[in-house]
C-alpha cells in the first residue's frame, strides 16, 4: 500500500495546473464557478484550446490519439480542472462515443470519428432514454429497419442533453423486432443533420435549455455507421458505462461546491447569528467529511483490487446525493438573496439583469441546486442503483 504520488504523477499534475492557469479564459472560469452550464460556443472554444494541447481525452490509449493516462493520472487531471474552476469536457464524446468507437468500431469509423472529437471539432449526444423507458433501457422502442445498405430509423429519444448543439448521436435502436428487451439493440452513429430529425427543446426547472426530445422520422443511417455487431449493443453499452464509473462520483463538482460554500461562509459569518455560523459550519464539515469518503472510495476503485464494491452504483448513489446537499448548502448560506431568477444569458454581460444587490456568489447557485435534482434521476435513478447494489452484492 502506497499513499504517495510518484514523481511522474506530480510532474504531470503540475503541468496541468500550469496550463490551466495560463490558458483558461477568465470569463469562462467565472461562469463555470457560478454554476451556470457551459454555453455551446464557450464549450467549442475551450475544447479546441484543449485539443491543441492534446488534452481533450488524455486517458484514451495512445494508438487512438490519447496520452494513455493511468487511472490515477486521469484522476489528477480531472482534479486540477475542478480546482481551477475549469469546465470539463462534455462526457458524450470523450467518455462514451470515443471509447465505444475505439473499442468496438471499425478502422474506418475510428479514422472518421475519433480525430474530430480530439480536436474539439465535432460534438456528440447520447441516444439512450425514450419517452416510455425512463430508467428501464431494456424497453427501448426506437426501431432501425434494414433497408438496402442502410437502416431507416423511426421513433424518438428524450432527455437528450445538448442534442441541439451536437453533430452526432450514438443511438441505441432496436434492429430486431423478434428479440425481446435488451436483446436486439444496436448502436448507430447518427448524423444530427440528417433529414427527418427534429429536435424539440425541453426547458428544465432551472429555467434553462439543456435537454431535448429528438424525433426520428424515416431517418436514413448508412449500415457502416452501425458499431460492432447487430443486436449486441446492450453489452457494449454496459462496457462503456462501466468504463466511466468513477466519474459518476462527480468528485470535482463536489470539491468546487465546497470551496464555494466555504468562501461564502467566511464572507457572511460576520453578519450572521453565531449559532447559525456554528450550524452552517457543521453542515459544511459533514459534507467535507463525506467528500473525503467519496474521494477515497474513488481512489480505491482506481488503484486497488476492489472487487467487493458494487462500483459505479455505490459511487453514483452517494455522489449524486452529496452534490445535491452541497448545492443546497450554498443556497441556504445565501438566504433570501438566492431567490431571484438570475438569467443565464443575462449574467454577467447584460447590465439590466445584473441585480445590484445580489451577493457576488448568488447567480447560478439556485440554478445549480434545481438542476441537481436530476442527478438522482438521470443515468439510472436512485432506486434503480439501489436495486443494482442489492442484486450484485446479495443476490436479492
Amino acid at each position, binding site marked *: 500500500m502506497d499513499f504517495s504520488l510518484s514523481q511522474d504523477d506530480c510532474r504531470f499534475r503540475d503541468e496541468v495546473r500550469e496550463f490551466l492557469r495560463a490558458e483558461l479564459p477568465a470569463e469562462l472560469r467565472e461562469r463555470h464557478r457560478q454554476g451556470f452550464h457551459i454555453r455551446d460556443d464557450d464549450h467549442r472554444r475551450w475544447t479546441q484550446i484543449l485539443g491543441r494541447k492534446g488534452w481533450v481525452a488524455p486517458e484514451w490509449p495512445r494508438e487512438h490519439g490519447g496520452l494513455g493516462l493511468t487511472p490515477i493520472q486521469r484522476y489528477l487531471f480531472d482534479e486540477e480542472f475542478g480546482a481551477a474552476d475549469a469546465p470539463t469536457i462534455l462526457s458524450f464524446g470523450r467518455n462514451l462515443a470515443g471509447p465505444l468507437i475505439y473499442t468496438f468500431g471499425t478502422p474506418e469509423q475510428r479514422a472518421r470519428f475519433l480525430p474530430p472529437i480530439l480536436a474539439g471539432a465535432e460534438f456528440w449526444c447520447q441516444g439512450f*432514454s425514450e419517452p*416510455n*423507458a*425512463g*430508467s*428501464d433501457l431494456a*424497453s427501448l422502442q426506437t426501431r432501425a429497419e434494414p433497408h438496402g445498405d442502410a437502416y431507416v430509423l423511426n421513433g424518438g429519444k*428524450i*432527455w437528450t442533453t445538448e442534442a441541439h448543439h451536437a453533430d452526432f448521436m450514438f443511438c441505441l435502436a432496436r434492429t430486431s423486432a423478434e428479440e425481446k428487451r435488451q436483446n436486439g439493440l444496436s448502436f448507430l452513429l447518427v448524423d444530427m443533420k440528417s433529414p427527418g430529425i427534429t429536435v424539440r427543446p*425541453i*426547458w*428544465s*426547472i432551472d*429555467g434553462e435549455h439543456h*435537454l431535448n426530445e429528438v424525433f426520428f422520422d424515416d431517418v436514413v443511417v448508412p449500415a457502416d455507421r452501425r458499431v460492432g455487431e447487430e443486436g449486441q449493443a446492450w453489452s457494449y453499452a454496459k462496457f462503456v458505462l462501466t468504463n466511466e464509473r468513477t466519474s459518476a462520483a462527480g468528485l470535482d463538482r463536489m470539491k468546487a461546491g465546497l470551496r464555494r460554500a466555504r468562501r461564502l461562509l467566511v464572507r457572511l459569518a460576520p*453578519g*450572521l*447569528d453565531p*449559532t*447559525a455560523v456554528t*450550524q*452552517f459550519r457543521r453542515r459544511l464539515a459533514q459534507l467535507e467529511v463525506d467528500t473525503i469518503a467519496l474521494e477515497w472510495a474513488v481512489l480505491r476503485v482506481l488503484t486497488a483490487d476492489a472487487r467487493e464494491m458494487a462500483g459505479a452504483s455505490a459511487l453514483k448513489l452517494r455522489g449524486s446525493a452529496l452534490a445535491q446537499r452541497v448545492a443546497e448548502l450554498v*443556497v*441556504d448560506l445565501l*438566504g*433570501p*438573496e*438566492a*431567490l*431571484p*431568477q438570475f438569467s443565464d444569458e443575462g449574467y454577467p454581460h447584460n447590465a439590466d*439583469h445584473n*441585480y*445590484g*444587490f445580489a*451577493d457576488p456568489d448568488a447567480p447560478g447557485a*439556485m440554478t445549480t*441546486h*434545481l*438542476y441537481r*435534482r*436530476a442527478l*438522482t*434521476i*438521470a443515468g439510472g*435513478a*436512485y*432506486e434503480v442503483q*439501489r436495486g443494482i447494489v442489492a442484486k450484485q452484492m446479495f443476490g436479492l
Partner: protein
Amino acid sequence: MNLSLTEEQLLLRDSARRFLREQYSFDVRRQRLGDRGMGGELWTQFANMGWLAMSLDEELGGSGAGPVEIALLCEELGRVLALEPFVDSIVLAGSLLQAMPSTQLRDDLLRGLGAGEIVIAVAVLEPGARYAGAAGGVVAGLTSEGCTELTGRKILVRGGGEADMVIVAAVPPEGNPGDLGLYLVTMHGDSCARRTYSTVDGCEVADLSFDRTAAVDLAGGPMSAAAILDEALDRATVALCAEAVGCMEAVIELTAVHLRTRKQFGKTLGSFQALQHRMAEMHVECEYARAMIYKGLQSLTLPADERQKGVSAAKIRVCQAGLEVGAQGIQLHGGIGMTEEYPVGHYYRRLLVIEKTYGDLAHHFGRFEARSPLIEAQRQ
C-alpha cells in the same frame, strides 16, 4: 378544545377550491407567468369573492374572519400556485394596518385594500441583512419642515412592482440600526426607483431605492412599530405555512396519479414497494405539516413570547416537510418532473421560496431557541 372546522369554514374552503380549480388551471397560471402583475382580472375576482376584505371589521367592508379562515384560503391558493401576493399584500399589510390605531388614513387604506382598489406592498428586506428589517439599509430623516423622508434600498419586495403604497420598515430619525419604525410611501413617478424581476417560483418582486422620498410615519399606538411588525409577520407566516401545505397536497396528488399510471419494467410504478413507501412518507410529512398549521393558529392567540416560539416551530416543521415532499415529488416523477412544462417542479420552486420567506430555517431555529432558553426545565 376542538379542532374541527365549522360548517362555514368548510363552505369557504370548498368554494375557494372549486373557484380556483376552475379559474386557475396550470395553463392559466403559465400564461400569467408571461404577463406579470396582479392588477388584472383575477385580483378583482378575489375581491368579489370577498377574500381581500375577509378579515376586516364589518364597518370596513369585511366579514371579520380570523386566521383560521385565512389559512383555509391560503391552502387553496397554494394548491393552484396562485401568483398573486395575497399573503404579503392582504395578510401582512392588512395585519400591520389593523394593528394601528384607527385614523382616517388607516381606515381608508384598509377599505381600499379590501375592495381590491389599492395595492399595498410591505418592504422589509435589505441587501446583506438577511431577515433584519431595519439593519440600516433604509433610514428615515426629517426635513427642515418636519416632514419624514426615507433614504436607502429595500429588496425582494413582493408585489412592489405595481404597489400603489408601500409600507417600509426603516431606522427612525436619530435611531440606531436595529431601531425600527414603519413608514408609508405613496408610489408615483419619482417616489423611488423600482426594478422588478421574478424569483425562481415565477412570483414578481421589486427592489426599491429611496432617495429622500416623502413618507408618513405610521407609528403612534400603544404597541411599538417593531412589535406590530413582528406580530404581523407571524400572522403572515402562518398563512404562508398553510399555502405550503396546499402545495404539498398538490404534489402528493400529482405524484400518486403518476405512480398509478406510469409503467416501467413492465409494471406500474405504484407497484414498487420502495416507491409506495416513499409515497407514504410524503403523506405522513404532509400530515405533520398540517398539524403544525393548527399549532401556528393556536400560537397566534398566545402572548408574544409563546406566539413567536410556536410560529417558528410551525415554520420550521412545515418548511422541512415542504422541501422533502417537493424534492421527492420530482424524484418520483423522474425526468418529466425536471421540466418546466410539468407542474411538480413549479411546486418545488414555490416551496423553496416559501422556506426563505419571512425567515428561513436558520432564522426560525434561532428564534425558537432564543424563546426556549437553556435553563433548568420546570414543569410547565
